[in-house]
């Protein structure tokens, strides 16, 4: 029974830092350039070249460290991880090993049942990425593209604190949100800017010792993380229940076949022979730098959500949804401020706006209805120009035509009728057209009130202000 088993997961997330140039050279880091167009002599590992640390990468690592409440190491060391591979030009990767720049920190995740859970971050360290080997379209040969070689990465290593694939995904999403808030990573998973390795083991419930773990490499979507972990857990449980043993190894997830399988052992039998890189001095960070970075931190998602809940009266759930990215939060905040009605703004952003964005596959930044335009429309609901029901029609037109609410309301003639004289005139017309119903109503059949409301609304194409209709109807139906 799967219920007898507990899953233990730790993640190693690789976030590509959004620096303009590489971590140890001046080459550009932009994605999608022709192969090797962004590889300098340093990136190519030419004889005599030396690495020079990019200070911006350090600043970004420190931003992350402060955001998760971690200690920032005053002294950290770059080491060489030695192995041969064609896309690793120097024959070693420069990476922080024994002394990472970001030490123990913590983030909080919210589970589906609303329970909050802390996940420990063991460390985060700076390192350079490798290049790419290209095996397609080159006949028997392989190509090497070193554009990515030397791109700065922050490797964020969690404690084995997660107990399900869903927790792992929640944690990964949390880090994803955080690095984008901090503007240290674009979070683009398709381009590989944000990816992770998952360490997975299982143990019988109640046991305290960890089981033997397997590492699933290179997962580059939330969905894959969830599926890969679930399949790996299933595999391990079946293996043990069948009398077998889990072997510690590195595995790859094949999303097409929905399984994990071991990487060739040759690729992992390396003794990396780490040692401090003599070309780089220890990275020394002083208090003043840390404080400068701290002063420049943006409001972080947890703090922002708490503020939305407190000041705008939103539920914790809504506040969480509206702070999932800095862009959504900014959009929402602008709408709320413009319309003066936070709850109404929240409902519209989470409802129509996100529905339309999903439908059209757009990001909030690309929304055809700007925050100012939405705020303008909400004002028309508040001031009674349009009803909530008509507002949906207005919104759709705004989305399609990229015009503001007033222009649409005007053009479509959707403006609510609030002129008492006009409404009274319509009511009188309806009354004279339905003498039988009027007589019945006056004889005490009060249920017919709804009939009259319906007739008036029909006659005004839904534009009559319902409250005024009610009030006037009551008065006019009552007597001559």
């Amino acid at each position, binding site marked *: 029974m799967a219920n007898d088993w507990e899953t233990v997961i730790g993640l190693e997330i690789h976030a590509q830092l959004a620096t303009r140039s590489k971590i140890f050279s001046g080459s550009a880091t932009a994605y999608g350039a022709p192969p090797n167009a962004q590889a300098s002599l340093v990136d190519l590992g030419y004889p*005599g070249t030396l690495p020079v640390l990019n200070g911006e990468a350090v600043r970004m690592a420190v931003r992350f460290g402060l955001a998760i409440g971690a200690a920032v190491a005053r002294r950290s060391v770059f080491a060489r991880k030695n192995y041969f591979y064609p896309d690793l030009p120097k024959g070693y990767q420069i990476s922080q090993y024994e002394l990472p720049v970001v030490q123990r920190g913590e983030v909080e995740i919210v589970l589906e049942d609303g329970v909050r859970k802390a996940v420990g971050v063991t460390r985060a360290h700076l390192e350079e990425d490798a290049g790419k080997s290209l095996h397609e379209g080159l006949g028997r040969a392989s190509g090497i593209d070193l554009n990515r070689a030397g791109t700065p990465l922050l490797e964020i290593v969690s404690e084995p604190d997660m107990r399900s694939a869903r927790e792992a995904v929640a944690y990964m999403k949390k880090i994803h949100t955080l690095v984008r808030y901090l503007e240290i990573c674009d979070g683009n998973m398709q381009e590989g800017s944000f990816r992770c390795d998952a360490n997975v083991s299982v143990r019988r419930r109640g046991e305290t010792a960890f089981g033997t773990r397997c590492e699933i490499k290179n997962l580059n979507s939330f969905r894959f993380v969830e599926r890969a972990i679930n399949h790996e857990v299933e595999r391990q449980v079946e293996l043990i229940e069948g009398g077998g043993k889990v072997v510690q190894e590195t595995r790859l997830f094949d999303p097409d076949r929905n399984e994990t399988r071991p990487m060739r052992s040759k690729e992992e039998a390396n003794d990396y022979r780490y040692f401090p890189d003599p070309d780089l001095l220890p990275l020394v960070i002083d208090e003043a730098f840390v404080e400068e970075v701290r002063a420049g931190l943006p409001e972080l998602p947890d703090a922002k959500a708490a503020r939305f809940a407190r000041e705008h009266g939103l539920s914790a759930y809504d506040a969480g949804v509206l702070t999932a990215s800095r862009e959504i939060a900014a959009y929402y905040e602008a709408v709320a401020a413009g319309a003066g009605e936070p709850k109404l703004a929240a409902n519209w952003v989470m409802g129509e706006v996100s529905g339309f964005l999903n439908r059209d596959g757009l990001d909030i930044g690309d929304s055809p209805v700007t925050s100012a335009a939405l705020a303008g429309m909400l004002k028309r609901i508040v001031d009674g120009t349009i009803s909530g029901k008509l507002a949906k029609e207005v919104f759709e037109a705004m989305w399609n035509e990229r015009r503001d609410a007033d222009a649409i309301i005007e053009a479509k003639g959707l403006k609510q009728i609030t002129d008492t004289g006009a409404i009274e005139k319509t009511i009188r017309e309806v009354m004279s057209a339905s003498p039988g119903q009027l007589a019945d109503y006056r004889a005490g059949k009060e249920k017919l009130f709804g009939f009259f409301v319906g007739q008036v609304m029909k006659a005004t194409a839904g534009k009559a202000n319902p409250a005024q209709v009610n009030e006037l109807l009551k008065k006019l139906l009552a007597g001559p």
Partner: protein
Amino acid sequence: MSLHAATAAEIGRGLASRQYSSVEVTRHFLERIERANPALNAFVTVTAERALEDAKRADLRLARGEGGPLTGVPLAHKDIFCTSGILTSCGSRMLANFVAPYDATVVERLDAAGMVLLGKTNMDEFAMGSSNETSFYGPVRNPWDTAKVPGGSSGGSAAAVAARIAPVATGTDTGGSIRQPGALTGLTGFKPTYGRVSRYGMIAFASSLDQAGVLAQSAEDAALVLGAMAGHDARDSTSVDAPVPDYASGLEKPVKGLKIGIIREFFGDGLEAGTGTAVRAAIEALRKEGATVEELSLPNLPLSVPTYYVVAPAECSSNLSRFDGVRFGYRCRDPKDLLDLYRRSRGEGFGAEVKRRIMTGTYVLSAGYYDAYYLKAQKVRSLINADFRRAFERVDVLMGPTTPTPAFGIGAKTDDPILMYLNDIYTIGANLAGLPAVSVPCGLVDGLPVGLQVIGPHFSEQRLLAVAHAWQRATDWHRRLPPGFA
């Protein structure tokens, strides 16, 4: 005095006073190279055309009165420095086809000073050797006795300057590779403080030890060339951002009152008698000039050689991983697959000594051995450092022999790497501690030069040069030419 017997400084003065042009000087040295190099094998590449272009440019600059003390003076670069558009072989088959696409900082700076590039000098393969016998281009011969080695690894630079086929040359010193050949060929071999000269463009052997320097005829020449090549370089994170003093202007400081420490450990067994006598006599002469002398013990210094032969191979095993046959350098014929490409390119491209050190280095960094070797060596390294620090609390400079013996015969030590390694027993300490040190000629034993080594605290280049200069004002060992090259 004939032109080639002049020091670089003297040539510079001759150029400035228009006694001769740089083109004339350059032609003179190119002719001498043509005559003498076949017997010495000091040059891997002679850049005659480039030299004459450099010389013409220098003459124009001098004519405009814009030259400095080195403008128009020819020099040779050790073939470990990348020179744009010119073969940069590092003495290896691995790079026998490598035309560097850029200039090393050292090359760039001496070029900017107006020096004329005669060519690139032979060296032990990847600077690994003490005799210049590990070069892919064959051994270099010592001008004082062509059956003897010139020392290494900067053996080509040393032989070239000793034979006066180049007025001055650059070298690099990882464990003595400037001072030891300097001593064995009668030159002033200067290794600056680690970080004083940029390593950018200097092909790495052991990054924490490598330092560029000069093989010169005199302390004055060393001061001029060092002054032109030293200084901070943003492209080398280990280069130190501190101003470079005007070394040449500080040369005249007398040794009176100088506190000299004699390193007791450098005068034990293994020191050849004649060498010991010459070095002691030199120190005695300095005492008579007004220096005080005391004997000091640096108890951990005898551990230098074993420490070095863990640290240097460890770093080299990693530094040389980039030579994989993929992007530059030697590639084996028709590789079957990736592994075959690696195995044969490296197997065929590297010589025996380089492979020995790569294997040693790989071993000492391996899981299970790292603590016992690499980590322990680093600890001993800091003990050696502390020994020096304590010594420099008492004295201004330390002195002793540069090498245990004068030049030995070609082939005499090639079968016994340990015996070869012991040749650097007195020089390695300064590398492990990152200290500046100089070897100056102080006598001849059986017609072969012997060197006095002077070691100073970090960034005491000016003091060392002044001491060397004072010694050279009082003696003429540095002005003696090898018979046959006069």
